[in-house]
Structures are given as C-alpha cells and as structure tokens.
C-alpha cells in the first residue's frame, strides 16, 4: 500500500521555448513527463502513481503563458494559470463563465500555480475546465518536432488519465471560437464542502438564443465526473434545439443527459447520487445560461 513519500528521483529539464520543449520530449520519448503547474503531478509522484525518469518543466516557456484575441476567437496558452484566467478582462468580456470556472477551483494558492493546460492534459474526469471548454467548441493545438496539429477538445480525451496527444506532443494552446450572438454559458458543480473540494459532478451548458423565433437556437452540454472522460451529451443538446425555453424542456434535457452519462459508483459518491446531481445541475446550468442568452437577445446585446 502506498503511503505518501518524498518525490521520486528524476532528471529535470527546463526548456525556454516550445521548440526546445518539443526536442526534449522527443529525446526522452516515453520516460519524460511534461510538468506545468505541477499541483496534480507532484501529488501523483509523491503517491508513486507515476514515476517519470525525467520532468520537463514548462514554467520557463514564456510564450505558452498568454491570453490573446485572434481572428475567429481567443487563444489561451497552455501554461496560463487559473489565476490569470480568473482575472483576465478579455476572457471575462468574451466568456465570463470561464473566469467563474477558474475562480471556483481550489484556493488562491492553487490557482496561482495550476494551469489550464495541466488541467486538460491530466485528463481526469474531475477536472473542471474540460466541460465548459467543450461547450465552447474549443480546439487544442498540439506541437511536436514533427509539426503542429489541431484537435477538437471533444476528441482529446481518450480514457481515464489519457489524452489523444502522442508521446512526443505538447499541448501548447487552446483556441476558443468566437461566441455566436446572444449566447451564454454556465458551469455548475457540486462538492461536499462549499469550496476547495473535489468535484462530485459538474455540468457546463452553453445556450445560443434564436432572437427571431424566441427559441433555443443551439445548446451544448458537457459533463465532468460523469464517465471515464469529460463528455458532451448530444441527445440532450439535440432535444433542446428549437425548443421553447420551458422547465419541461429543461427537464427532458436533464433526463437525456442522465441517460447519456456513465457516472461511476465509488466510496466518494454513489452512482444514484451523481445521477441526481447531473439532473439538477443540468437544469440549473441550462436555466442560468439560457436566461442570460435570452436577456442578451431581448436587450439586443450580442
């Protein structure tokens, strides 16, 4: 049985550019781990869940820590901390619920260090960023010495703690497409305590309002801790498209979301409890996002 231990021994590499990082990773292929904020990785190493022979520290790669507007949307560097996201006026303007998502993770001490790239690359079902970003249609940029490719975030999570990134690829940036007019998102999560706790279940909803028809134009819903990987619940989304914004519609969507989810039973929470939470949080997130999108449409504020 594993008790907490001091960190295992490893080589430490500190690249300054993405290219250097890619080369280092290619060289140490298979036995190196990328090390972003480290708030999860240090723990996993202390518990001997992972024992990489080398650590490639990315804190010195300045170009990976950025938030910028670009054609077609926003780009967030993978090394951007939760704190930077939480306090970014640009993100607040475009996708305020991402700021709220960041602000609700851990404590200020965690948020000062933990990064969005680390949160995604860990591919843990309890991570909070995948779900809201998936509802926004986020794209991840992967770089290696072989070149660069882009992948929809939705396709990034393969299985528990495993992503689609090849062993030599680095997640460098997250691109978020521009928000359609009259749309809004929400990410709601539940944990036992009121803060600084592991998410039992989380639901992100992103609603686009059809101003002409006064209906739900589009809806996207993604869940945390509701399966081995973060997942979109597309039947629930489809059921909402073109619907009037009523409790009945939300209720139906929530039921579909529960059916599509595969929450696990564990000593942390019973499956039945997680299902109840998926149901209620789906409704709440849709209500919050939908009301905001509708209000924007009514005011004419895209």
């Amino acid at each position: 049985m594993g008790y907490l231990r001091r960190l295992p021994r490893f080589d430490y590499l500190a690249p300054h550019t993405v290219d250097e990082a890619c080369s280092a990773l290619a060289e140490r292929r298979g036995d190196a781990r990328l090390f972003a904020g480290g708030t999860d990785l240090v723990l996993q190493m202390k518990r001997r869940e992972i024992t990489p022979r080398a650590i490639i520290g990315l804190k010195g790669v300045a170009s990976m820590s950025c938030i910028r507007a670009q054609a077609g949307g926003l780009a967030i560097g993978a090394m951007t901390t939760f704190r930077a996201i939480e306090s970014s006026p640009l993100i607040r303007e475009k996708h305020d619920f991402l700021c709220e998502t960041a602000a609700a993770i851990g404590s200020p001490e965690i948020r000062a260090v933990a990064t969005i790239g680390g949160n995604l690359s860990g591919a843990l079902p309890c991570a909070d960023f995948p779900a809201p970003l998936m509802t926004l249609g986020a794209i991840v940029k992967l770089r290696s010495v072989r070149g660069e490719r882009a992948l929809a975030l939705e396709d990034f999570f393969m299985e528990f703690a495993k992503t689609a990134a090849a062993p030599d690829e680095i997640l460098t940036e997250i691109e978020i497409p521009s928000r359609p007019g009259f749309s809004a998102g929400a990410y709601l999560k539940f944990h036992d305590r009121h803060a600084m706790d592991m998410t039992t279940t989380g639901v992100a909803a992103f609603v686009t309002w059809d101003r002409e028809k006064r209906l739900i134009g589009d809806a996207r819903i993604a869940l945390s801790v509701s399966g081995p990987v973060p997942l979109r619940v597309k039947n629930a989304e489809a059921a909402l498209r073109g619907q009037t914004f009523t409790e009945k519609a939300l209720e139906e969507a929530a039921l579909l979301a529960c059916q599509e989810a595969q929450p696990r039973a564990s000593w942390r929470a019973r499956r039945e409890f997680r299902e109840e939470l998926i149901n209620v949080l789906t409704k709440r997130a849709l209500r919050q996002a939908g009301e905001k999108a509708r209000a924007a449409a009514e005011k004419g504020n895209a």
Partner: protein
Amino acid sequence: MKHLSPVSLKVNGELYELSIPPWRTLLEVLREDLSLTGTKRSCQEGQCGACTVLLDGRAIYSCLFLAVEAEGKEILTIEGLARSAGALDPIQKAFVETGAVQCGFCTPGLVLAAKSFLDENPAPSEEEVRRATVGHLCRCTGYFQIFEAVLAAARERAGKSAPA
C-alpha cells in the same frame, strides 16, 4: 541521472547559492537547507496551507512547488515578514490581538496568505477574506477570529497609509 543542480534562491531578500537535486520541493529546501522552519510541513498535498510562502508576492503551497522552479523569483517566508518591517507586521499584530492564534501551526501560512491578499485588495469585504483564506485549514479557532484579524489588519494598514 543528473543529481545536483545549481540553484540560486532569493529568500527574504537574501540570495542563496545552492546545489540541490531537482526532486526536492521548495518546502523541503526552505526547512532543511535554509533552516527556515516557520514554513510548516503538514499535509504535503496542497490542502492545508501550512506551507504557504509568497513567490513574487503571490501565495503558493511550497509543498507542491519544485525548488528549482523558484529560481529567479522573490520568495518571502514568515521569517522575512517580521524582519522586513522591523517589528511585527500589522497582519501579525492583528492575529495576535484578535486571538487568531491558538496552536499556531496554521498561522505562518495564513499570515502570508493574508499579506498577499491584502496587498492586492486593501479594503476587502468579509466574504472576500473568506474566499482568500479557503486554502488554509485551522482546526483550533473555527476561523472566526482569523476573519476578524484579517479585517482588522486591513483597517490598520489603511489607517497607516492614509495621508495625514
């Protein structure tokens, strides 16, 4: 495997040239190499806040931070807070005077978290204080006297910095 890396750490204004293996946490180096034991070792999992130090003015958990990655940053530990002010910092004074200190094991971490927070938000609401200190366990006080201390420190600091 390369074992020792030369690392220079700037702690409490002093520069230390060290040669340390990369797998040592900042907490370990502060306590074991620099004898700065005011930074406490408790959960070692980034949950309790007892090991909090300031890195370029920002509170972090030193148990989750590699010492090699602190190179080139300004580190402030509790030992540096009192020294830099010559006497107790207003936050330390407020902790003493409001009964926010019992066993004292959470105290250095909380004092530093409060400093980082008040430097950024000099006139916080009670709600903001609560949010700023959520990463710190205190089993003794039930937290109320800690909220009072941080709010009192904010008032004290505001009084001092106000133009005469």
